[in-house]
Protein backbone atom coordinates (compact mmCIF):
# COMPACT_ATOMS: atom_id res chain seq x y z
CA UNK A 1 0.00 0.00 0.00
CA UNK A 2 1.51 3.30 -0.97
CA UNK A 3 0.81 6.40 1.12
CA UNK A 4 -0.98 4.88 4.06
CA UNK A 5 -2.43 7.53 6.31
CA UNK A 6 -1.29 5.65 9.41
CA UNK A 7 1.75 3.41 9.46
CA UNK A 8 2.06 1.13 12.49
CA UNK A 9 5.57 -0.28 12.67
CA UNK A 10 7.06 -2.79 15.14
CA UNK A 11 4.72 -1.74 17.90
CA UNK A 12 4.93 -3.42 21.29
CA UNK A 13 2.66 -2.43 24.18
CA UNK A 14 2.67 -3.15 27.89
CA UNK A 15 0.13 -2.67 30.65
CA UNK A 16 2.64 -2.50 33.48
CA UNK A 17 4.56 -5.76 33.17
CA UNK A 18 1.99 -7.53 31.03
CA UNK A 19 2.71 -7.30 27.32
CA UNK A 20 -0.38 -6.86 25.18
CA UNK A 21 0.99 -6.24 21.68
CA UNK A 22 3.92 -7.98 20.03
CA UNK A 23 5.71 -6.53 16.96
CA UNK A 24 2.61 -5.29 15.22
CA UNK A 25 2.90 -3.91 11.70
CA UNK A 26 -0.20 -2.55 9.95
CA UNK A 27 -0.86 0.14 7.35
CA UNK A 28 -4.12 2.04 7.33
CA UNK A 29 -5.29 3.10 3.86
CA UNK A 30 -6.77 6.58 3.41
CA UNK A 31 -10.51 6.90 2.80
CA UNK A 32 -11.02 3.21 3.41
CA UNK A 33 -12.42 1.26 6.34
CA UNK A 34 -9.99 -1.02 8.10
CA UNK A 35 -11.35 -3.53 10.60
CA UNK A 36 -9.45 -5.09 13.51
CA UNK A 37 -10.93 -8.47 14.38
CA UNK A 38 -9.99 -11.25 16.70
CA UNK A 39 -11.14 -13.04 19.86
CA UNK A 40 -11.43 -11.21 23.20
CA UNK A 41 -8.13 -10.11 24.62
CA UNK A 42 -6.27 -10.22 21.33
CA UNK A 43 -5.14 -6.61 21.56
CA UNK A 44 -7.31 -5.01 18.91
CA UNK A 45 -8.80 -2.37 21.21
CA UNK A 46 -5.41 -1.73 22.75
CA UNK A 47 -3.94 -0.98 19.34
CA UNK A 48 -6.87 1.22 18.40
CA UNK A 49 -6.47 3.30 21.53
CA UNK A 50 -2.79 3.80 20.74
CA UNK A 51 -3.73 5.62 17.57
CA UNK A 52 -5.19 8.57 19.46
CA UNK A 53 -3.14 7.98 22.57
CA UNK A 54 -6.13 7.31 24.78
CA UNK A 55 -4.01 4.65 26.43
CA UNK A 56 -2.03 7.51 27.96
CA UNK A 57 -4.89 7.85 30.44
CA UNK A 58 -4.06 4.48 31.97
CA UNK A 59 -1.13 4.57 34.36
CA UNK A 60 1.76 2.23 33.78
CA UNK A 61 1.40 1.75 30.03
CA UNK A 62 4.40 1.65 27.73
CA UNK A 63 4.76 1.67 23.96
CA UNK A 64 7.69 0.96 21.70
CA UNK A 65 7.84 1.17 17.95
CA UNK A 66 6.46 3.81 15.68
CA UNK A 67 2.94 4.92 14.93
CA UNK A 68 3.08 7.53 12.19
CA UNK A 69 0.20 9.75 11.17
CA UNK A 70 1.00 11.10 7.71
CA UNK A 71 4.62 10.42 8.44
CA UNK A 72 4.80 12.02 11.89
CA UNK A 73 5.36 9.84 14.93
CA UNK A 74 2.39 10.37 17.26
CA UNK A 75 4.41 9.40 20.33
CA UNK A 76 7.19 11.92 19.72
CA UNK A 77 7.78 14.09 22.81
CA UNK A 78 6.93 17.34 21.03
CA UNK A 79 3.52 16.06 19.91
CA UNK A 80 0.52 17.89 21.36
CA UNK A 81 -1.90 15.15 22.33
CA UNK A 82 -4.80 17.60 22.20
CA UNK A 83 -4.06 18.36 18.54
CA UNK A 84 -3.68 14.67 17.79
CA UNK A 85 -7.10 13.92 19.21
CA UNK A 86 -8.66 16.64 17.08
CA UNK A 87 -7.34 14.91 13.99
CA UNK A 88 -8.05 11.38 15.15
CA UNK A 89 -11.57 11.17 16.55
CA UNK A 90 -13.12 8.31 18.48
CA UNK A 91 -16.50 6.68 18.94
CA UNK A 92 -16.87 4.35 21.90
CA UNK A 93 -18.54 1.03 22.53
CA UNK A 94 -21.12 2.39 24.89
CA UNK A 95 -22.49 5.62 23.51
CA UNK A 96 -21.58 8.46 25.88
CA UNK A 97 -23.45 11.62 24.97
CA UNK A 98 -22.99 14.45 27.43
CA UNK A 99 -26.00 15.24 29.62
CA UNK A 100 -26.65 18.30 27.52
CA UNK A 101 -28.86 19.14 24.56
CA UNK A 102 -28.35 17.49 21.18
CA UNK A 103 -27.06 20.77 19.80
CA UNK A 104 -24.64 21.33 22.69
CA UNK A 105 -23.28 17.82 22.31
CA UNK A 106 -22.33 18.31 18.69
CA UNK A 107 -21.10 21.85 19.31
CA UNK A 108 -18.93 20.85 22.29
CA UNK A 109 -15.81 20.07 20.31
CA UNK A 110 -16.13 23.33 18.40
CA UNK A 111 -16.77 25.43 21.47
CA UNK A 112 -13.73 24.15 23.32
CA UNK A 113 -11.67 25.22 20.35
CA UNK A 114 -12.99 28.71 20.84
CA UNK A 115 -15.69 28.89 18.18
CA UNK A 116 -18.48 31.15 19.45
CA UNK A 117 -20.12 32.55 16.32
CA UNK A 118 -23.72 31.36 16.56
CA UNK A 119 -24.38 31.11 12.82
CA UNK A 120 -21.25 29.15 12.14
CA UNK A 121 -21.92 26.82 15.05
CA UNK A 122 -25.44 26.15 13.81
CA UNK A 123 -24.17 25.50 10.29
CA UNK A 124 -21.52 23.06 11.38
CA UNK A 125 -23.83 21.25 13.79
CA UNK A 126 -26.35 20.78 11.00
CA UNK A 127 -23.67 19.57 8.60
CA UNK A 128 -22.40 17.01 11.10
CA UNK A 129 -25.85 15.75 12.00
CA UNK A 130 -26.65 15.35 8.30
CA UNK A 131 -23.45 13.43 7.66
CA UNK A 132 -24.28 11.18 10.59
CA UNK A 133 -27.73 10.47 9.11
CA UNK A 134 -29.40 11.91 12.20
CA UNK A 135 -30.53 15.35 11.05
CA UNK A 136 -33.98 14.30 9.81
CA UNK A 137 -34.79 12.71 13.13
CA UNK A 138 -33.70 15.53 15.38
CA UNK A 139 -33.92 18.80 13.45
CA UNK A 140 -37.04 19.84 15.33
CA UNK A 141 -35.66 19.10 18.76
CA UNK A 142 -32.06 20.18 18.77
CA UNK A 143 -32.42 21.62 22.25
CA UNK A 144 -33.90 18.54 23.82
CA UNK A 145 -31.63 16.47 26.02
CA UNK A 146 -29.46 14.01 24.17
CA UNK A 147 -30.33 11.42 26.78
CA UNK A 148 -33.85 11.16 25.40
CA UNK A 149 -32.64 9.62 22.14
CA UNK A 150 -32.71 5.88 21.53
CA UNK A 151 -29.49 3.86 21.78
CA UNK A 152 -28.89 3.86 18.05
CA UNK A 153 -29.63 7.56 17.79
CA UNK A 154 -27.28 8.32 20.65
CA UNK A 155 -24.48 6.49 18.94
CA UNK A 156 -25.10 8.40 15.70
CA UNK A 157 -25.05 11.55 17.81
CA UNK A 158 -21.64 10.54 19.13
CA UNK A 159 -20.52 10.07 15.54
CA UNK A 160 -21.84 13.52 14.64
CA UNK A 161 -20.04 14.95 17.65
CA UNK A 162 -16.79 13.38 16.54
CA UNK A 163 -17.27 14.51 12.94
CA UNK A 164 -17.96 18.10 13.96
CA UNK A 165 -14.32 18.80 14.71
CA UNK A 166 -13.48 17.58 11.19
CA UNK A 167 -11.00 14.85 12.00
CA UNK A 168 -9.04 13.04 9.36
CA UNK A 169 -9.58 9.67 10.92
CA UNK A 170 -12.42 8.20 12.94
CA UNK A 171 -11.67 5.34 15.31
CA UNK A 172 -14.62 3.17 16.32
CA UNK A 173 -14.31 0.79 19.23
CA UNK A 174 -17.08 -1.82 18.82
CA UNK A 175 -19.60 0.93 18.06
CA UNK A 176 -22.56 -1.42 17.61
CA UNK A 177 -22.10 -3.87 20.50
CA UNK A 178 -24.80 -2.27 22.57
CA UNK A 179 -27.29 -1.81 19.72
CA UNK A 180 -30.10 -3.89 18.25
CA UNK A 181 -29.77 -5.23 14.66
CA UNK A 182 -31.74 -2.44 13.01
CA UNK A 183 -29.70 0.29 14.67
CA UNK A 184 -26.54 -1.68 13.86
CA UNK A 185 -27.50 -1.89 10.19
CA UNK A 186 -28.04 1.88 10.08
CA UNK A 187 -24.59 2.52 11.46
CA UNK A 188 -22.96 0.02 9.11
CA UNK A 189 -24.53 1.83 6.15
CA UNK A 190 -23.32 5.12 7.64
CA UNK A 191 -19.77 3.83 7.89
CA UNK A 192 -19.74 3.10 4.18
CA UNK A 193 -20.99 6.61 3.44
CA UNK A 194 -18.41 8.23 5.70
CA UNK A 195 -15.52 6.73 3.75
CA UNK A 196 -15.71 9.52 1.18
CA UNK A 197 -14.65 12.09 3.74
CA UNK A 198 -12.80 10.16 6.42
CA UNK A 199 -10.57 7.19 7.04
CA UNK A 200 -12.17 4.73 9.41
CA UNK A 201 -10.64 2.13 11.70
CA UNK A 202 -13.14 -0.08 13.43
CA UNK A 203 -12.66 -2.70 16.11
CA UNK A 204 -15.34 -5.34 16.14
CA UNK A 205 -15.78 -8.72 17.73
CA UNK A 206 -18.47 -9.42 15.15
CA UNK A 207 -16.57 -10.64 12.13
CA UNK A 208 -19.63 -10.56 9.90
CA UNK A 209 -19.75 -6.87 10.56
CA UNK A 210 -16.14 -6.56 9.46
CA UNK A 211 -17.03 -8.53 6.33
CA UNK A 212 -19.98 -6.28 5.58
CA UNK A 213 -18.48 -2.87 6.00
CA UNK A 214 -14.69 -2.88 5.80
CA UNK A 215 -12.27 -2.76 2.90
CA UNK A 216 -9.26 -4.13 4.77
CA UNK A 217 -9.22 -6.52 7.70
CA UNK A 218 -6.50 -7.23 10.25
CA UNK A 219 -6.89 -10.40 12.28
CA UNK A 220 -5.24 -10.39 15.70
CA UNK A 221 -4.62 -13.22 18.12
CA UNK A 222 -2.97 -13.00 21.54
CA UNK A 223 -1.40 -9.65 20.80
CA UNK A 224 0.01 -10.54 17.42
CA UNK A 225 -1.12 -9.65 13.95
CA UNK A 226 -1.90 -12.93 12.22
CA UNK A 227 -3.05 -11.70 8.82
CA UNK A 228 -3.77 -8.36 7.17
CA UNK A 229 -5.31 -8.15 3.72
CA UNK A 230 -8.23 -6.91 1.64
CA UNK A 231 -11.44 -7.94 3.34
CA UNK A 232 -12.75 -9.93 0.40
CA UNK A 233 -9.60 -12.03 0.44
CA UNK A 234 -9.74 -12.64 4.19
CA UNK A 235 -13.31 -13.89 3.95
CA UNK A 236 -13.17 -15.87 0.71
CA UNK A 237 -9.64 -17.28 0.75
CA UNK A 238 -7.41 -16.35 3.70
CA UNK A 239 -3.76 -17.27 3.56
CA UNK A 240 -3.34 -18.33 7.18
CA UNK A 241 -5.04 -21.40 8.63
CA UNK A 242 -5.67 -19.62 11.95
CA UNK A 243 -7.50 -16.88 10.05
CA UNK A 244 -9.55 -19.45 8.19
CA UNK A 245 -10.49 -21.20 11.45
CA UNK A 246 -11.54 -17.91 12.96
CA UNK A 247 -13.70 -16.67 10.12
CA UNK A 248 -15.39 -20.05 9.68
CA UNK A 249 -16.17 -20.14 13.38
CA UNK A 250 -14.00 -23.17 14.07
CA UNK A 251 -11.78 -21.38 16.52
CA UNK A 252 -10.90 -22.86 19.92
Amino acid at each position, binding site marked *: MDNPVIQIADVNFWYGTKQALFDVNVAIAPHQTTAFIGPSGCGKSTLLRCLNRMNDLITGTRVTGRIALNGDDVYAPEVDVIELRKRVGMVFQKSNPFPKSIFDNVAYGLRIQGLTDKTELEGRVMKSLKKAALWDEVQDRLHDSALMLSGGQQQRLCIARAIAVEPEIILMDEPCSALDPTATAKIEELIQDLETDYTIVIVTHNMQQA*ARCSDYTAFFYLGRLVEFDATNKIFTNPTNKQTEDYVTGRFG
Partner: protein
Amino acid sequence: MELHFDQELTQAKDLLLRMSSLAEQAVVTALKGLVQRDDALAQSVLDGDSQLDNLQKEIDERCVELIALRQPKARDLRFLIVIMKIAAELERVGDQAVNIAHRATALNREPQLKPFVDIPRMSDLSCGMIRTVLDAFVYGKIDVARQVIRNDDEVDRLETQMHRELTSFMIEDPHTITRALSLIGVAHSLERIGDHAVNIAEEVVYLYEGRDIRHQSPNA
Protein backbone atom coordinates in the same frame (compact mmCIF):
# COMPACT_ATOMS: atom_id res chain seq x y z
CA MET B 1 -34.21 2.38 1.05
CA GLU B 2 -31.22 1.71 -1.13
CA LEU B 3 -28.23 0.15 0.54
CA HIS B 4 -24.68 -0.11 -0.71
CA PHE B 5 -25.43 -3.80 -1.06
CA ASP B 6 -28.25 -2.99 -3.51
CA GLN B 7 -25.78 -1.20 -5.74
CA GLU B 8 -23.54 -4.25 -5.67
CA LEU B 9 -26.46 -6.51 -6.58
CA THR B 10 -27.30 -4.23 -9.50
CA GLN B 11 -23.72 -4.42 -10.71
CA ALA B 12 -23.86 -8.22 -10.65
CA LYS B 13 -27.12 -8.16 -12.55
CA ASP B 14 -25.64 -5.83 -15.16
CA LEU B 15 -22.76 -8.26 -15.69
CA LEU B 16 -25.26 -11.03 -16.30
CA LEU B 17 -27.27 -8.96 -18.75
CA ARG B 18 -24.11 -8.13 -20.65
CA MET B 19 -23.32 -11.82 -20.80
CA SER B 20 -26.81 -12.68 -22.01
CA SER B 21 -26.71 -10.18 -24.83
CA LEU B 22 -23.29 -11.49 -25.91
CA ALA B 23 -24.54 -15.08 -25.82
CA GLU B 24 -27.60 -14.26 -27.87
CA GLN B 25 -25.48 -12.29 -30.29
CA ALA B 26 -23.14 -15.28 -30.71
CA VAL B 27 -26.00 -17.59 -31.65
CA VAL B 28 -27.49 -15.09 -34.11
CA THR B 29 -24.12 -14.45 -35.71
CA ALA B 30 -23.32 -18.17 -35.95
CA LEU B 31 -26.69 -18.76 -37.68
CA LYS B 32 -26.01 -15.91 -40.07
CA GLY B 33 -22.66 -17.44 -40.84
CA LEU B 34 -24.51 -20.64 -41.73
CA VAL B 35 -27.49 -19.24 -43.62
CA GLN B 36 -25.56 -16.53 -45.44
CA ARG B 37 -22.65 -18.92 -45.92
CA ASP B 38 -20.27 -16.31 -44.41
CA ASP B 39 -17.06 -17.75 -42.90
CA ALA B 40 -15.98 -14.45 -41.43
CA LEU B 41 -19.10 -14.29 -39.29
CA ALA B 42 -18.57 -17.87 -38.14
CA GLN B 43 -14.98 -17.07 -37.21
CA SER B 44 -16.02 -14.04 -35.19
CA VAL B 45 -18.15 -16.30 -33.02
CA LEU B 46 -15.17 -18.57 -32.34
CA ASP B 47 -13.05 -15.54 -31.44
CA GLY B 48 -15.66 -14.09 -29.13
CA ASP B 49 -16.30 -17.16 -26.99
CA SER B 50 -13.46 -16.43 -24.58
CA GLN B 51 -15.20 -13.19 -23.64
CA LEU B 52 -18.21 -15.20 -22.50
CA ASP B 53 -16.05 -17.57 -20.51
CA ASN B 54 -14.30 -14.69 -18.78
CA LEU B 55 -17.60 -13.05 -17.93
CA GLN B 56 -18.82 -16.23 -16.32
CA LYS B 57 -15.69 -16.41 -14.19
CA GLU B 58 -16.05 -12.77 -13.24
CA ILE B 59 -19.69 -13.25 -12.27
CA ASP B 60 -18.94 -16.33 -10.18
CA GLU B 61 -16.09 -14.60 -8.39
CA ARG B 62 -18.20 -11.57 -7.65
CA CYS B 63 -21.16 -13.60 -6.38
CA VAL B 64 -18.98 -15.73 -4.11
CA GLU B 65 -17.46 -12.56 -2.73
CA LEU B 66 -20.85 -10.97 -2.13
CA ILE B 67 -22.14 -14.09 -0.41
CA ALA B 68 -19.09 -14.23 1.85
CA LEU B 69 -19.03 -10.56 2.68
CA ARG B 70 -22.66 -9.64 2.85
CA GLN B 71 -24.28 -12.76 4.33
CA PRO B 72 -27.35 -12.30 2.11
CA LYS B 73 -30.64 -13.83 3.10
CA ALA B 74 -33.94 -14.69 1.43
CA ARG B 75 -34.34 -13.18 -2.02
CA ASP B 76 -30.87 -11.58 -1.98
CA LEU B 77 -29.32 -15.01 -1.46
CA ARG B 78 -31.47 -16.64 -4.15
CA PHE B 79 -30.62 -13.75 -6.45
CA LEU B 80 -26.87 -14.34 -6.22
CA ILE B 81 -27.18 -18.10 -6.54
CA VAL B 82 -29.52 -17.78 -9.54
CA ILE B 83 -27.16 -15.33 -11.24
CA MET B 84 -24.35 -17.85 -10.99
CA LYS B 85 -26.54 -20.62 -12.40
CA ILE B 86 -27.87 -18.48 -15.27
CA ALA B 87 -24.31 -17.49 -16.10
CA ALA B 88 -23.41 -21.18 -16.38
CA GLU B 89 -26.36 -21.76 -18.73
CA LEU B 90 -25.39 -18.76 -20.85
CA GLU B 91 -21.82 -20.00 -21.08
CA ARG B 92 -23.11 -23.27 -22.51
CA VAL B 93 -25.33 -21.35 -24.91
CA GLY B 94 -22.12 -19.71 -26.06
CA ASP B 95 -20.54 -23.13 -26.49
CA GLN B 96 -23.50 -24.22 -28.63
CA ALA B 97 -22.99 -21.10 -30.75
CA VAL B 98 -19.39 -22.20 -31.24
CA ASN B 99 -20.58 -25.65 -32.32
CA ILE B 100 -22.95 -24.09 -34.86
CA ALA B 101 -20.11 -21.87 -36.12
CA HIS B 102 -17.86 -24.91 -36.58
CA ARG B 103 -20.56 -26.72 -38.53
CA ALA B 104 -21.23 -23.59 -40.58
CA THR B 105 -17.60 -23.43 -41.60
CA ALA B 106 -17.70 -27.09 -42.64
CA LEU B 107 -21.00 -26.73 -44.52
CA ASN B 108 -19.86 -23.59 -46.31
CA ARG B 109 -17.16 -25.61 -48.06
CA GLU B 110 -19.82 -27.67 -49.82
CA PRO B 111 -22.85 -26.77 -51.89
CA GLN B 112 -25.98 -26.02 -49.95
CA LEU B 113 -28.07 -29.10 -49.38
CA LYS B 114 -31.53 -27.53 -49.25
CA PRO B 115 -33.10 -24.15 -48.61
CA PHE B 116 -32.91 -23.13 -44.95
CA VAL B 117 -36.45 -23.07 -43.65
CA ASP B 118 -36.68 -24.90 -40.38
CA ILE B 119 -33.31 -23.89 -39.07
CA PRO B 120 -34.01 -20.16 -39.16
CA ARG B 121 -37.40 -20.89 -37.55
CA MET B 122 -35.78 -22.87 -34.77
CA SER B 123 -33.16 -20.22 -34.26
CA ASP B 124 -35.75 -17.46 -34.02
CA LEU B 125 -37.63 -19.49 -31.45
CA SER B 126 -34.59 -20.41 -29.36
CA CYS B 127 -33.03 -16.96 -29.41
CA GLY B 128 -36.42 -15.50 -28.68
CA MET B 129 -36.72 -17.79 -25.68
CA ILE B 130 -33.37 -16.63 -24.34
CA ARG B 131 -34.27 -12.99 -24.79
CA THR B 132 -37.69 -13.41 -23.25
CA VAL B 133 -36.51 -15.37 -20.26
CA LEU B 134 -33.83 -12.81 -19.41
CA ASP B 135 -36.51 -10.15 -19.63
CA ALA B 136 -38.61 -12.23 -17.22
CA PHE B 137 -35.59 -12.37 -14.93
CA VAL B 138 -35.13 -8.61 -14.88
CA TYR B 139 -38.79 -7.74 -14.38
CA GLY B 140 -39.99 -10.69 -12.32
CA LYS B 141 -42.48 -11.84 -14.91
CA ILE B 142 -43.06 -15.37 -13.69
CA ASP B 143 -45.87 -16.12 -16.12
CA VAL B 144 -43.62 -15.21 -19.02
CA ALA B 145 -40.99 -17.58 -17.62
CA ARG B 146 -43.55 -20.39 -17.47
CA GLN B 147 -44.60 -19.65 -21.04
CA VAL B 148 -40.99 -20.02 -22.17
CA ILE B 149 -40.93 -23.48 -20.61
CA ARG B 150 -44.00 -24.42 -22.66
CA ASN B 151 -42.53 -22.94 -25.86
CA ASP B 152 -39.76 -25.51 -25.71
CA ASP B 153 -42.20 -28.11 -26.99
CA GLU B 154 -42.30 -26.35 -30.36
CA VAL B 155 -38.50 -26.31 -30.57
CA ASP B 156 -38.35 -30.00 -29.76
CA ARG B 157 -41.01 -30.68 -32.40
CA LEU B 158 -39.07 -28.81 -35.04
CA GLU B 159 -35.93 -30.72 -34.21
CA THR B 160 -37.75 -34.06 -34.52
CA GLN B 161 -39.21 -32.88 -37.83
CA MET B 162 -35.83 -31.86 -39.19
CA HIS B 163 -34.31 -35.11 -38.03
CA ARG B 164 -36.93 -37.08 -39.98
CA GLU B 165 -36.57 -34.93 -43.07
CA LEU B 166 -32.80 -35.13 -43.16
CA THR B 167 -32.83 -38.86 -42.47
CA SER B 168 -34.98 -39.38 -45.60
CA PHE B 169 -32.51 -37.19 -47.55
CA MET B 170 -29.64 -39.43 -46.41
CA ILE B 171 -31.52 -42.62 -47.31
CA GLU B 172 -32.34 -41.29 -50.79
CA ASP B 173 -28.84 -40.01 -51.56
CA PRO B 174 -25.83 -41.18 -49.55
CA HIS B 175 -23.75 -38.29 -50.90
CA THR B 176 -25.72 -35.97 -48.70
CA ILE B 177 -24.86 -37.78 -45.48
CA THR B 178 -22.02 -35.53 -44.32
CA ARG B 179 -23.99 -32.35 -44.89
CA ALA B 180 -27.18 -33.79 -43.48
CA LEU B 181 -25.41 -34.95 -40.33
CA SER B 182 -23.94 -31.46 -39.88
CA LEU B 183 -27.38 -29.94 -40.23
CA ILE B 184 -28.79 -32.42 -37.73
CA GLY B 185 -25.99 -31.26 -35.42
CA VAL B 186 -27.02 -27.64 -35.87
CA ALA B 187 -30.64 -28.52 -35.12
CA HIS B 188 -29.50 -30.36 -32.04
CA SER B 189 -27.51 -27.33 -30.87
CA LEU B 190 -30.54 -25.12 -31.33
CA GLU B 191 -32.68 -27.59 -29.41
CA ARG B 192 -30.11 -27.56 -26.59
CA ILE B 193 -30.24 -23.77 -26.56
CA GLY B 194 -33.97 -24.04 -26.02
CA ASP B 195 -33.34 -26.39 -23.11
CA HIS B 196 -30.94 -23.88 -21.57
CA ALA B 197 -33.64 -21.23 -21.83
CA VAL B 198 -35.98 -23.59 -19.96
CA ASN B 199 -33.39 -24.07 -17.21
CA ILE B 200 -33.02 -20.32 -16.90
CA ALA B 201 -36.80 -19.99 -16.68
CA GLU B 202 -36.89 -22.49 -13.81
CA GLU B 203 -34.25 -20.44 -11.99
CA VAL B 204 -36.33 -17.30 -12.50
CA VAL B 205 -39.31 -18.98 -10.87
CA TYR B 206 -37.06 -20.10 -8.01
CA LEU B 207 -35.78 -16.57 -7.56
CA TYR B 208 -39.16 -14.89 -7.38
CA GLU B 209 -41.29 -17.59 -5.77
CA GLY B 210 -38.69 -19.52 -3.83
CA ARG B 211 -40.02 -22.74 -5.37
CA ASP B 212 -37.92 -25.32 -7.16
CA ILE B 213 -39.91 -26.41 -10.23
CA ARG B 214 -37.17 -28.36 -11.94
CA HIS B 215 -37.77 -31.92 -13.19
CA GLN B 216 -41.54 -31.41 -13.28
CA SER B 217 -44.25 -30.75 -15.80
CA PRO B 218 -44.31 -27.13 -17.00
CA ASN B 219 -47.63 -26.31 -15.36
CA ALA B 220 -46.37 -26.80 -11.82
